[in-house]
């Protein structure tokens, strides 16, 4: 749920990075954090376990600039990918404006990807959203690893709706900003369509 503040002349939107465990959601946010001008970002918060697995969420506030005199602020969140943290994943989807699905391109993670997309659909529906209706993009991550599925295969299994998709290597930043820009554009376009 975007938040338009006429007083501060600000618009705030929430983007959630979703995907199976260890697919690179946190790595996407870390790369964005490292490469963003200090004026344009807040602190990155990671609620993680001692072994650096996301426990609840990562949070990164970003300022993208102005549109028609309104500052645009995006709050980026990740969900915990591990299957048993489903209750937490549901909470983080509350009030979401756009979703990035980060897929793990490795062949042996295909099933985990498919399961996670299904989980995303179910959890969105519980909140009253439909995946087909919200701004949604996909990133095929870890393209630099040896045993990866082809983009065609990934597309066939994970992108039946033909939403914008990108190849990524989040560790080195390949595709990270392309993915973010694509989802941010869709969110802003959606804002234009709908009044309050």
């Amino acid at each position, binding site marked *: 749920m*975007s*938040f338009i503040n006429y*007083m501060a002349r600000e618009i705030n939107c*929430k983007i959630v990075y979703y995907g199976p465990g260890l697919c690179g959601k946190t790595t996407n946010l870390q790369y964005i954090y490292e490469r963003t001008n200090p004026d344009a970002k807040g602190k990155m918060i990671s609620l993680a376990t001692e072994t650096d697995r996301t426990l609840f969420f990562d949070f990164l506030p970003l300022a993208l*600039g102005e549109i*028609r005199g309104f500052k645009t602020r995006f*709050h980026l969140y990740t969900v915990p990918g591990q299957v048993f943290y489903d209750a937490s994943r549901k909470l983080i989807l509350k009030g979401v404006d756009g979703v990035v699905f980060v897929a793990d391109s490795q062949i042996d993670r295909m099933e985990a990807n498919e399961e996670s997309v299904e989980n995303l659909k179910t959890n969105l529906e519980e909140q009253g959203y439909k995946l087909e209706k919200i701004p949604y993009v996909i990133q095929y991550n870890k393209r630099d690893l040896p045993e990866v599925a082809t983009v065609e295969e990934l597309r066939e299994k994970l992108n039946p709706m033909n939403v914008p998709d990108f190849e990524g290597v989040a560790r080195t930043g390949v595709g990270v900003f392309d993915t973010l820009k694509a989802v941010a554009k869709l969110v802003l376009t959606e*804002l234009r369509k709908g009044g*309050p």
Partner: protein
Amino acid sequence: MVNPQMVMYEEEFNQIQNVVDRLVKDANAKVVFIVDKNGQLIAASGDVDNLDTTSLASLTAGNIAATGGMAKLLKENEFATQFHEGEKANIHIQLVGNRVILVVIFDSKSSLGLVRLRVRRASEELNNIFEALLKKVADPGADSPFAEITDEDIDNLFND
């Protein structure tokens, strides 16, 4: 559009800011702020200069969401109040009208009893303001400032 937008206008913002400013004084608090349930900061008052209110807002909302999840499992509607006691700072979190979160940070200059008392009154006032605001937003006459934006406006945001 799937989501109703949260919108804040100058009139209601000023009313909210008044409540928050007064609560800082009345409760002898260090900082008071209001967050919506999605973690967006709405208003803040007190000694906020040295405080990362954006992060606090997001964590508060996460906290309320997690507590709400626990409440659901226990077949409770909500746990509307939370209190965390530290060595120097304490934090009192109150859900207002199941819609926004009122956070009071205070130290030994105040007490939990005083904070609770003042929060109760402020909550009622805030609840009325937000109810009026929601009605205003639901009015079809209220138009989005973004209805007019062009593809070019959006593209310009991303010109590095």
